[in-house]
């Protein structure tokens, strides 16, 4: 289908443009201290390319919408891609307010990781089940994504604050935790790298296992380190699993998902090791000098501001619109489904964040850690709740 091809090409184009834009934002590092906050050439080019990239992604969205007949926010690939897009949008808006080019250097790569991560899930257009056939699908989902995208900026600013401010001269609680955050981000890259590698090699290994009395076949796209519990390998000439997935891991395809997690850890850890080998410092320490020209209180301000802007949007999309739709579709506006509970947890968390800002001593570093924690909760809700805690929202 031509429209669909155009759609994927546009998404790919957007991705490349974001990459190019990041490089331009990176070039702003070299500018003179006196020029800070004033418009710089490379900053302007960077934001222009970002906007073109965003438009390309918008075309992806519209063409895919036309091709499928429904808003492309109905499965893991589509939602994560859309989330990446909202992050970019939130960045563009805040850029025009604060004119902080460095923000792009951090926000765009993370948004790109999200988009790349999305592409690891099945990208076919899937038809909508009856419960999803409603205008609330895109009203609810787009508002949630936008809210999360804005909250993501607080994460980006928080990370920048921590890199800028944390004492890297010694191993301390701050520098170790920051390094763990860096490592986790590299794990995501590890997942993308390994999945792409084996996708290109077109690797398949089929297993058969029984669950609840029915025999299920599952298709591994990565060599099986952990096979399904008491599964039999059907494909010949591929690696045999080293061990079985423990039984307490439940849910659809627990074995395959667990195997993917193992691979991501292995690849991510190797990647991290290589990075450390090359830079011979903690990643945080290596990045620190880049940010020495950014005023920490401006970062603190952006961090707080984006929570202040994102919180109402998230509440509207993630709780209120969600409740309205649930009322229409299932007849109950709140059902303590894991996804709903985690939306509430996110809401509680940012509510606590906003209240803590009222007290002295919670600005700056502590706030930055909270911004990181909040985003971790959002990602947990997206990834772990969808893939592991499986409730009504498990669409991947």
């Amino acid at each position, binding site marked *: 289908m031509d429209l669909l091809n155009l759609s994927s090409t546009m998404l790919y184009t957007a991705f490349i443009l974001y990459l190019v834009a990041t490089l331009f934002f990176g070039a702003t590092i070299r500018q003179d201290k006196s020029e800070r906050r004033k418009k710089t050439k490379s900053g302007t080019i960077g934001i222009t390319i970002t906007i073109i990239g965003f438009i390309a992604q918008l075309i992806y969205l519209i063409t895919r919408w036309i091709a499928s007949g429904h808003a492309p926010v109905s499965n893991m690939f589509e939602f994560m891609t859309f989330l990446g897009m909202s992050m970019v949008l939130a960045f563009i808006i805040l850029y025009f307010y604060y004119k902080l080019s460095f923000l792009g250097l951090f926000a765009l790569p993370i948004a790109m990781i999200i988009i790349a991560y999305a592409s690891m899930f099945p990208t076919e257009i899937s*038809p909508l089940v009856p419960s999803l056939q409603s205008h609330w699908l895109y009203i609810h989902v787009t508002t949630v994504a936008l809210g999360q995208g804005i909250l993501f900026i607080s994460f980006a600013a928080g990370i920048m604050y921590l890199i800028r401010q944390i004492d890297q001269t010694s191993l301390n609680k701050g520098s170790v935790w920051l390094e763990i955050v860096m490592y986790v981000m590299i794990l995501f890259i590890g997942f993308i790298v390994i999945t792409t590698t084996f996708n290109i090699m077109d690797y398949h290994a089929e297993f058969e296992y029984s669950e609840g009395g029915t025999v299920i076949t599952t298709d591994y796209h990565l060599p099986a380190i952990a096979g399904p519990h008491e599964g039999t390998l059907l494909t010949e000439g591929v690696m045999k699993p080293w061990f079985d997935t423990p039984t307490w891991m439940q849910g659809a395809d627990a074995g395959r998902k667990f195997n993917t997690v193992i691979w991501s850890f292995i690849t991510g850890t190797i990647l991290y090791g290589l990075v450390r080998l090359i830079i011979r410092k903690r990643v945080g320490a290596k990045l620190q000098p880049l940010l020495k020209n950014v005023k920490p*209180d401006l970062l603190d301000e952006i961090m707080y501001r984006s929570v202040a802007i994102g919180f109402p949007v998230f509440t509207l999309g993630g709780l209120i619109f969600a409740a309205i739709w649930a009322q229409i579709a299932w007849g109950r506006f709140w059902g303590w489904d894991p996804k709903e509970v985690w939306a509430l947890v996110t809401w509680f968390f940012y509510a606590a964040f906003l209240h803590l800002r009222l007290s002295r001593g919670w600005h700056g570093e502590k706030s930055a850690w909270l911004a990181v924690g909040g985003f971790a909760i959002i990602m947990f809700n997206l990834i772990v709740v969808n893939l592991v805690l499986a409730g009504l929202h498990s669409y991947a």
Partner: protein
Amino acid sequence: MNKIKCECGHINPEGTVLCEACGKPIEGNQHIDGNEGKKLLNMRYDGTARRSQTYNKSVVDKIWSFFSSVKVGVWLIVIALVASMIGTIFPQEIYIPADAVSRDPAIFYEDRYGVLGLIYYQLGFHNLYSSWWYMILIALIGISLVICSLDRFVPLYKALKRQKAQRHETFLNRQRLYSESSDVADQDIETVKENLKKQRYKIREENGHILAEKGRFSRWGPYVNHIGLIIILLAAIFRTTPLMHTEEYVWVREGQQIALPGTKGEYYIENKEFIMETHDENDERFAQAIQQEGVVPSNFQTDIVIYQATNASIPGAEPELEPILEESIQMNKPAKFDGYTLYQSGYQVNEFTNMTFKVHETDDPDETSLGSFTINLMNPESTYELDSGFRVEIGQYYPDYILDNGVPTSETNFPRNPAFVLMVYPPESDSPEVSFLGIGKNIDATGENEYKIGIEDFELHDVSGLTLRVDYTLPFFILGSAIFMIGVIQGMYWQHRRIWIHPKAGGILLAAHTNKNWFGIKKEIEKSIENTSITMVEDQQELDE
């Protein structure tokens, strides 16, 4: 009450930290807002006298102080947050999957999750969100909301109303944004005023002292959103009463007309047809996905007629039914009538309506019928007399037959997989032949039966599962959410900004305060003092620690 008179002449209530009128720090009260030893004044509540910070003698005072603390509020939120997380580790009781060994929580959790599951169940986490302690936690948050808001709103409102344009010098120089300029021409001050007006500041002037203020209403945002939350919590309490909220689940077979439970016999429903459709696998848009994931349903629909009994109040009378609504209920498209809402919630396809059997001689290769009978599976008779003289008795009836550890039993009461033990009495015989019949099963108990029974025909129907709901609390939830959103936007998307100009010896002191977005107010000041001799404010913020 020990009122405090400030040197500006204003009389402040006990416990005031900064004079309501001129802002001068009141001696002896500075510890309350932690201003001691700090360069900057704590401007959070404008240094007003808060009950919680002033009185701490009686029990009421102590309870008030406890709940009015933001720290306590945040702790309550954090506890609720952690508790909510715990509830998602394993599924809640209502989400025990259909394929579980047993839906009895006492068995399910231990069976599936081992010791951890058992502990989870024993601690009551399987019903966490309706547990008494979770309810209490939410109620405590509610109390904290009310007290926090009252403790702050009332004094803050008064203070902002009473504030004067003329402020004490210490008030200005202990603001975060502050500058001193000497030799400022009157013309420059006029320019600044004009510029501030252009940026929608309201200007007040007293003896040359200027207060420029905007967005004060955003200070009320938090209190407005708390009112919204309180309405939501109250609605949640009301919802637990049957007066405000009821819910019934009902299975209706195609063609069946029954009284709707929970309507006191006033309403009846007829299921005309249940329709289940699937996405077309030849649709090239979805072909690939369907090929990978299997058939995807596209529609669950029940065509119904709702009847109202016109004489429901007369006990024992045969209801006279009048159709009031004919509709197709789908997912996302419930039917509404008279305060009730009816949702498509479940279905069961291909239940057996009736089965027709015939009797023939066991060794007759043509299986010539010696008479036939039809069993209504919803309402089977105990004996069937055939015209040919045969008599068939139903020995056992399993509507939904399964073998449970070798013992035949019925899984549900619905005729999804009917099976029978039939006693066939040949004409003029008193000793029956026993046959066991089910779908795909026809077992001769002794192996010596002369007559055999075979299925001749059957009819199927679908069953719709519908939820009938009355919820009068919805308007309150909507109202609460709307107020919450208004409040949160009011508080978050606007800022309360004040700029003070204090003439001093030919020059001026300039100070500014905002409750958030300092970057924004700095930009506005910069714009206002452009082309004047006034010095730009400096940020005196001390980053703690």
